[in-house]
C-alpha cells in the first residue's frame, strides 16, 4: 500500500536501540557516532546530554537539553517519558535520517522496541553494549543479573567494549555472551566503531564508494590508526528471486553477518522489497514508497572478519 497523509507523509525513520548497563560504554559509542555519522543527519536520544563530548567547533547550538552539531546531528535528552521524547522528533518538519536511542542501564530493549516501530519510526535493530571486564560479574549480581541477561538476549548485535583491558583477553565475557545469544560480537576499542555497523546501511546505498569497508575513520584522538572493528564487506547478487527465495537467502546468511541491506525487485512482487539484516534480526519489507527502478537486486553485506 502507498502511504498517504500522516506524519512526514508516511515516511518512517530507521530507529536503533542502544542498550547495556551503566559503565558499559554506551555513551562512548554515541559520542563516536555523532562525531562520525558518515553523512547521516542523526538524532541521538541520550540519558545525559552533558555526557556528550564533542569539540566546541562542532557545536552549532545548545538550547536546554538539546545539542545541535554542525554535521547535522542532534543530541536530545530523553525527557520524562518515551512518548514526549519521540514527539520532539516528530515535531521536526523534515525527518532525520536515523534515530539512535540510548536506553537507561536497566532498560530492557525488547520491552522498549515497540516505541521504535510506531508513528514515524521503523525499528532498525537492537545493539547492546557489554563491558568485557564487567559483564560476567554483572550477570551474577543481585537484583540486576536477570536484567543483564535479558538485555543480551534481546541483542541483534553485541558490542564488546574494553576487551583490551580484560585479563583473559575477553574469553570469559565471550563465553557468557555466547551462552545467552548467537548475536555477532564485535570488539570495540575506545568506542571507535563505524556508524554503518551501529546504524546500518540505510537507506540502501546507491553510491558504491560508501560501501567499501573496512576503512579508516578520521579519528579525533591518538587511536586514529586503529582499524575500524574487524569486519569486511561483500556484495551478494540476488538475481531474479521470488519473495520466498529472498527470505530464504536472508535467513540463510551466516551468523557472523553484522549488517546486510538491499533493495530487490522480486519476480513475484510489484513493489520493491527491502532486505534487512542486523545480526540475528532478518526481515523483508515491502517498500511501496520507493521507486522500483531503485532496486539493484544486490545485498551489501558486512561480516565479521
Amino acid at each position, binding site marked *: 500500500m502507498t502511504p498517504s497523509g500522516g*506524519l512526514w507523509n508516511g515516511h518512517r525513520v530507521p530507529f536503533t536501540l542502544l542498550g547495556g548497563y551503566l559503565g558499559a560504554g554506551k555513551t562512548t559509542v554515541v559520542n563516536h557516532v555523532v562525531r562520525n555519522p558518515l553523512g547521516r543527519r542523526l538524532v541521538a536520544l541520550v540519558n545525559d546530554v552533558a555526557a556528550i563530548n564533542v569539540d566546541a567547533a562542532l557545536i552549532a547550538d545548545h538550547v536546554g537539553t538539546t545539542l545541535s552539531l554542525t554535521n547535522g546531528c542532534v543530541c536530545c535528552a530523553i525527557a520524562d517519558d518515551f512518548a514526549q521524547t519521540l514527539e520532539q522528533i516528530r515535531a521536526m518538519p523534515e525527518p532525520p535520517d536515523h534515530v539512535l536511542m540510548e536506553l537507561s542501564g536497566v532498560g530492557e530493549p525488547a520491552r522498549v522496541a515497540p516505541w521504535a516501530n510506531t508513528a514515524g519510526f521503523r525499528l532498525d535493530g537492537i545493539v547492546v553494549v557489554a563491558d568485557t571486564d564487567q559483564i560476567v560479574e554483572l550477570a551474577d549480581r543481585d537484583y540486576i543479573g536477570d536484567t543483564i541477561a535479558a538485555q543480551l538476549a534481546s541483542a541483534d548485535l553485541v558490542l564488546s567494549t574494553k576487551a583490551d583491558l580484560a585479563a583473559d583477553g575477553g574469553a570469559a565475557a565471550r563465553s557468557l555472551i555466547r551462552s545467552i545469544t548467537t548475536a555477532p560480537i564485535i570488539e570495540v576499542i575506545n568506542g571507535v566503531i563505524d556508524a554503518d555497523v551501529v546504524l546500518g546501511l540505510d537507506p540502501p546505498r546507491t553510491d558504491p564508494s560508501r560501501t567499501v569497508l573496512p576503512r579508516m575513520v578520521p579519528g579525533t584522538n591518538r587511536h586514529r590508526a586503529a582499524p575500524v572493528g574487524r569486519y569486511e564487506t561483500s556484495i551478494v547478487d540476488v538475481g531474479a528471486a521470488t519473495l520466498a527465495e529472498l527470505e530464504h537467502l536472508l535467513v540463510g546468511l551466516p551468523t557472523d553477518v553484522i549488517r546486510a541491506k538491499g533493495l530487490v525487485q522480486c519476480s513475484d512482487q510489484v513493489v520493491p522489497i527491502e532486505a534487512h539484516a542486523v545480526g540475528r534480526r532478518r526481515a523483508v519489507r515491502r517498500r511501496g514508497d520507493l521507486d522500483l527502478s531503485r532496486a539493484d537486486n544486490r545485498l551489501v553485506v558486512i561480516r565479521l572478519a
Partner: protein
Amino acid sequence: MSQPGIIHRARRVVTLDHAVPTAEAVAVRDGVILGVGSVEQMRAAWGPLPVDDTFADSVLLPGFVEAHSHSLEGAIWAWEYAGYFPRLGPDGELRKGCQTFDELIDLLRRLDAELDDPTESLTVWGFDPIYFPGERLAAHHLDVVSETRPICVIHASLHLITVNTALMEREGFADGCDVEGVPVGGDGRPIGELQEPPAMSLARREMLALWEVLADPASLRRFADMARVVGCTTVTELGATRLSTDDELALWTDAAAVDGFPARLVALLNPARGQPGTPDEIAQHTVAIRARSTPRARFGVVKMVLDGSIQGFTARLNAPGYLPHPDGTQRPNGIWLIEPEQFSAWFDAFHRHHVTVHTHVNGDQAVDLLLDTAEAAIASHSWLDHRHTAQHTQLTTAAQYRRMARLGMNANIFSNHIFYWGDQHRSITVGPDRAARMDACSTADREGVRYSVHSDASVTPLGSLHTMWCAVNRVTASGDVLGPDERISVDRALRAVTVDAAHQLRMDHEIGTIEAGKLADFVALGEDPYDVDPIALKDIEVRGTVVGGEITGPPA
C-alpha cells in the same frame, strides 16, 4: 489581618486526638484551630465568638489526606467521562455513565454537535470493555457519529484507546501499518483499537493533548475540586510532573493561590523526570524549593520509582515470582526503572540533605532493594526523623515490615488494589496465598510500621472513604473477602488516611487531627464512621470540607 473567629457546631466533632476524642464544637480563627469542646467551653475560653451551624447535623473529622495520588485525576476531566459506572465529577454532579454502546454513541453525538470546528477531535475517557463482553468497540461504531471528525475513546485502563476511521486517515494508517498493538479485522485493515502507549501514540494529537493538559492550571483546580467532592483537604502529586524551573513551580503555587482553592496540594519531586544536576545538586534544589511553598501548594519531599506494577507483570518479585502463563510457560520477572547504583546515589544525597524519600515499590524484591539502600544511607548519616516511605508496598512480607520498623520507615499501602484487582491477583498474578497477604495493613501494625493507605488516583478513583473501606473489609470486585486476617479496624483506617498520611508528608504538626494550633482542615460527613456498619463506610455522604477555616464550595 486577624479575623474575629468562629465556632463550628457539629452533630459531633471526631478529632482523632487521643486527649479529646470527641467534642460538640471546634473554634477557628485565621484558619487555625483555637480549640475543641462544647460551645460553652469555647466561648468561656475565647470570648463570645459567633456560632456557625452549617455542620450542625454533620460529623466533622480531620480532612482526609491522600498521600499517593496524581493530578491526572483532575486533568482527565478536560474531557467527558464515558465509563460504565455513574461517577461524581469535580463539580459534584453525578455522570450517569454509558451502560450500552448506544448510550456511548448518544454521548458522542451530543458532544460532536457542540463542537464548531469540524477538524477538532473529540475525546472521551473511562470506557471499560470488561463490562461489554459481547462486543468489541471498534472504529465502525464511532464512524456512525462522524466520518470526518477524529474521535478517540480512552479506555479505563489508560493502556488502550479506540479511534474512528477519520482519525486513522488523518494519521495515514487506515489501510494498515506494521505497528505492534494495532489489531486488524478480516479485511486486513485496523479495527481502530490501539493497544499500549507505543501504538496509542499513533493518535498523535490526542495523546499530546493529554500531556499538555497536565500543565494546565485548570487541571489542578479540577484536581482540588475532585478532592473536595470526596472529602480530601490535602492531596498529593507523587512525582509525575517536573518541579525544576520557576514556571513548573509557579504552575502549582499560582493555581492554588486563587481565592477559594478547595484543597492543599503537595507536589513531590521525582529526580528521574529530567531534573538536571548531580545528586547533591538535586537534593539542594529540593531543599531550596521548600521556600517556594505556599499554604496550599507544598514542595520539598521526593518520590522515586523502582519497579512497575503487579497487574502489568512489571513489578520486581522475589522467588517464586509470578504464576506461569495459562499455557504453562514461566513469566519473566518485572523491570527496574532505576539502576541500583543511581537509586543509591540519589537516596543517599536526599538523606544527607534531610529530604524525605518516597519510593514506589510494588514487588517484594523492589522492597528488598529499597531496604538495603535505605539501611546504607541511614547507617552513614544520622537523621532519626527521616520518615522515608515505601509506596504501594503491596507484596511486602512480615520480615520486610520488621526491617522497615527497625529502620524507622513508613509505608503507604495500596489498599484499593484489593477491590479493583484482588480477584486477578488471586487467580492470575501471584495466587491465593500471596494475594491473601497483599497490602498487609494488619501485618504492618503487628510489626510496628506506621502507614497510610491510598488510591494512587487516577489509577483508581480518589476517595479516602472508599480506600478505608477496602482496608477494613478487603472485599474484591467479585464480592469475596481476600485475606480476612489483614483487615483493620475503622479507627486504624481513619488514622491511616489522616494523621499517619500527614506524618509521611511531614505535615502532621499542621494537619491530620483536630486539635488546638493545627490548621482548620475538616471534612463534614453524614454519618460518624465509628457508628456505621464497616461494610457501609464507602457509602457515607461527604457533605463538604473546610480548608484553612474556609468552607469550600463547588467551582464557580
